[in-house]
């Protein structure tokens, strides 16, 4: 059995009287890029938040990077990087300060250099001194990716990372995801963008109404999801 980036077995999540996830069983090997596809409200984000240690399953087992969510997840948190729908950066701080403070929480060495390097890579090198509140949606998204990569995580969890990005920024983000996988890291990518998912992902799963309805090759998954959407 190959080592798994994460493993979800028989997971239910009950949320406000309905099941956000129903009997989800899903896994992805280390070094893979899994695309999670599905409509709004299909449970993709809930699953991602669970992998990010922000939510606990009502029932079932979740193991991320070989560590169970039932155990002390603190060590796990330093090994995963997460991009959510909001950028999670303090709005009144200059980007550089905000990122350096997060770097401090993760114990990143040479934080200033690391921040500079990542920001440049994501095309934000000249905006390090500008307050985050002046950023457009797309810039916030890229800043968020910088934050998630600060501590060079072994597993990168991305919730709709392409929202609000222009074509060039999308390509930059593509690059980052490819480089992450090339470096032997794993990625989970929640997205609506079927075409991009088919190009980037090595594995795919489609969720509908909190259930896994398809699991396998990304190209087929994109086709399956497209059929479902039609």
């Amino acid at each position, binding site marked *: 059995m190959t080592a798994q980036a994460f493993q979800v077995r028989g997971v239910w999540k009950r949320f*406000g009287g309905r*099941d956000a996830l*129903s*009997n989800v069983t899903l896994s992805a090997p280390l070094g893979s890029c899994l695309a999670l596809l599905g409509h709004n409200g299909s449970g993709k984000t809930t699953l991602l938040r669970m992998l990010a240690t922000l939510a606990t399953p*009502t*029932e079932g087992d979740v193991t991320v990077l070989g560590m169970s969510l039932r155990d002390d997840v603190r060590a796990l948190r330093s090994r995963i990087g997460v991009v959510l729908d909001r950028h999670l950066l303090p709005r009144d701080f200059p980007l550089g300060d905000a990122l350096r403070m997060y770097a401090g929480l993760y114990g990143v060495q040479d934080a200033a250099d690391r921040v500079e390097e990542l920001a440049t890579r994501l095309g934000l090198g000249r905006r390090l001194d500008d307050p985050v509140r002046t950023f457009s949606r797309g810039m916030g998204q890229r800043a968020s990716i910088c934050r998630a990569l600060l501590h060079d995580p072994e597993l990168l969890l991305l919730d709709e990372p392409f929202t609000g990005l222009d074509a060039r920024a999308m390509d930059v983000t593509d690059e980052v995801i490819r480089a992450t996988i090339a470096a032997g890291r794993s990625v989970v990518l929640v997205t609506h963008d079927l075409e991009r998912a088919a190009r980037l992902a090595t594995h795919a799963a489609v969720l509908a109404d909190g259930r896994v309805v398809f699991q396998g090759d990304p190209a087929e998954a994109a086709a399956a999801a497209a059929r479902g959407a039609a």
Partner: protein
Amino acid sequence: MNTAAAASDADWSQGAIPFERPAPSRFFVAHAALALGALLWLNWTIVHDVPLAIKGIGSSYLIFFYHFPSALNMGVAYTALMAFSVAYLRTKRPVWDRRARAAAEVGFLANAVLLLTGSTWAKAAWNAWWVWNDPRLMSAAVMSLVYVGYLMLESAIEEPQRRRQISAVYGILAFVNLPVVYYSIQWFGVASHPMKMDGMSDPAIKSAKWLSVLLFVPFYLLLYRWSYDRRTRAEHVEDVLQRVRRLEEKAA
């Protein structure tokens, strides 16, 4: 206390999905009859076994036999609420949350009875329904305000798992606060509460006092049971619906 405890609730700590049935409400009528009988016995005792008036405060002291048991039962219920909350946080099993909430309702009712009887007695003894400088009355009032907050959490938080967690933490905090409530008001208020009264040392009164505590227990237990069963049934219906859906899911 209850066989439902053994048939564990499905929580995320459980891999399988055991099926929890609500505790069968057997002997509920008998229990109710017992509670009623005990209260009748208490009244009979008061009418027949103790002096109907004592020096100084006259017959108003008789309310003491309803006042004192409420205080003790309130203490027991609030302590149980704390213990159940700790058990919930340790096990994450919803059954402890239901017990905690039932204990809270019993505790709050006893607290209300305590305040009402105390206030009635104050009217008779001091000719005022409410006095602000009586430390015990004030402590009991503050406690009731703290626990009203606990009861309000139930309707304030929709998401059940989150509600259980927050309620349990609040239940523990409220209990941690009780000694502070008690001593701060005891030490820094004006002491005027009638703790020792002439004539209360009468052996008949003393034995009736402890009998009154005993005779109130079935009543408060009945209330606890009613409150617990009501919640169990409500959650059970919800649970069955969920489980049927899940079983269908697994079969498919």
